[in-house]
């Protein structure tokens, strides 16, 4: 009986814990969104930090990222095409390629990429800021860190994931066309028709929203996780690993939700 009660209690604690995390995330996102509406946020300094964030999150890794997207796309397109030929379903290969790569896989991989590279860095940095009292110093100076530290990171993350996923998607489209039709314009009409069929307004809007949510998840969760770090240096790695786990769960949850909305 004791065992049962203990299990239920631990379940309850876990649930409350997760609820608290979720609440913290949404409250933070809410505050960030409110600040977005504040005119004083939009000054040159915030803009500079956003630019810097976009640079570090997207521009700096552009060539690596595009190379990686190229390899993944090429591999998958080849697999899909050869399988389709084998089963005589070539006519569905284009649509399959676009749906799998451009709509699902590339945004997901982009989010993972940014999470691994920038999300972990953000988490560490915020955790260190907190442990080193830098946040306290800012509070003493009555300078809100949200505007020049956190909000630009969120904006930069959203912009980066959306743009990188879009670029990777365009690259995959180009690659798919070349793989299927070669270096001719012969298949352009058929390809255009397929593209037109897939990308209706709902799909495009859903794709952009999904990428934006990915971008938010890979920056917001690390920031909040970093802010929760206890003021002990050895807690920084713990904070980062927790934050990254949450990022991973969030990315998967967003992907599952988008798929459910699209196909169910």
């Amino acid at each position, binding site marked *: 009986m004791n065992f049962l009660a203990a299990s239920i209690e631990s379940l309850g604690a876990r649930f409350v814990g997760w609820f608290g995390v979720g609440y913290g995330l949404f409250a933070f996102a809410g505050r960030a969104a409110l600040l977005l509406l504040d005119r004083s946020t939009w*000054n040159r300094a915030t803009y500079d930090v956003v630019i810097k964030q976009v640079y570090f999150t997207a521009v700096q890794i552009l060539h690596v990222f595009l190379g990686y997207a190229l390899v993944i796309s090429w591999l998958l397109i080849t697999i899909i095409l050869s399988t389709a030929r084998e089963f005589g379903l070539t006519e569905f290969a284009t649509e399959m390629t676009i749906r799998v790569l451009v709509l699902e896989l590339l945004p997901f991989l982009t989010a993972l990429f940014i999470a691994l590279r920038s999300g972990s860095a953000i988490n560490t940095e915020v955790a260190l800021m907190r442990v080193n009292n830098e946040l306290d110093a800012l509070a003493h100076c009555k300078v809100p860190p949200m505007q020049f530290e956190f909000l630009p990171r969120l904006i930069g993350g959203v912009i980066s994931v959306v743009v990188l996923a879009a670029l990777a998607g365009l690259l995959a489209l180009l690659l798919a066309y070349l793989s299927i039709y070669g270096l001719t314009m012969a298949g352009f009409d058929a390809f255009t028709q397929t593209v037109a069929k897939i990308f209706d307004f709902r799909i495009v809007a859903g794709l952009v929203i999904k990428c934006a949510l990915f971008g938010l998840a890979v920056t917001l969760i690390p920031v909040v996780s970093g802010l929760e770090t206890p003021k002990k240096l050895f807690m920084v790695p713990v904070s980062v690993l927790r934050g990254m786990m949450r990022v991973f769960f969030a990315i998967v949850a967003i992907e599952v939700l988008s798929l459910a909305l699209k196909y169910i």
Partner: protein
Amino acid sequence: MVAQDDGVARVALELPLRANLTAVDNIALIPLYQRHFDAAESTRQARAMLDALGYGDIAALRDPDMTPAQRFVTQLARALMLKRPRLIIDRPGAMLYDVPYPAFIAQLAARPEIDGTWEIYDFDWNLALYPQ
């Protein structure tokens, strides 16, 4: 410890600079986000403050690149920028461990552009270091 209130600007070890911002950017945060000046004007004010203390050349340095004295000056400039009625230097010995700090602080305070009085909180066994 001195209570944190709006009337007091503190210079203390536990109120460090923002590590990935330069000295001038650290100081410029205050006019920028408290008084809503634009970025150029804020930077100009921060630079003027550093010049007033005689340390205009450290403007582009970040926290890890500074000597303790430079770091202290930047923190002091930030505290001055807050323009609060009282300015407290909390245990300067912890921050200024590479210079004879009472003389160093006195020299900074004596600069013509700087006004106001600074309060120094220090351990009483260091009292002998202060001339007055």
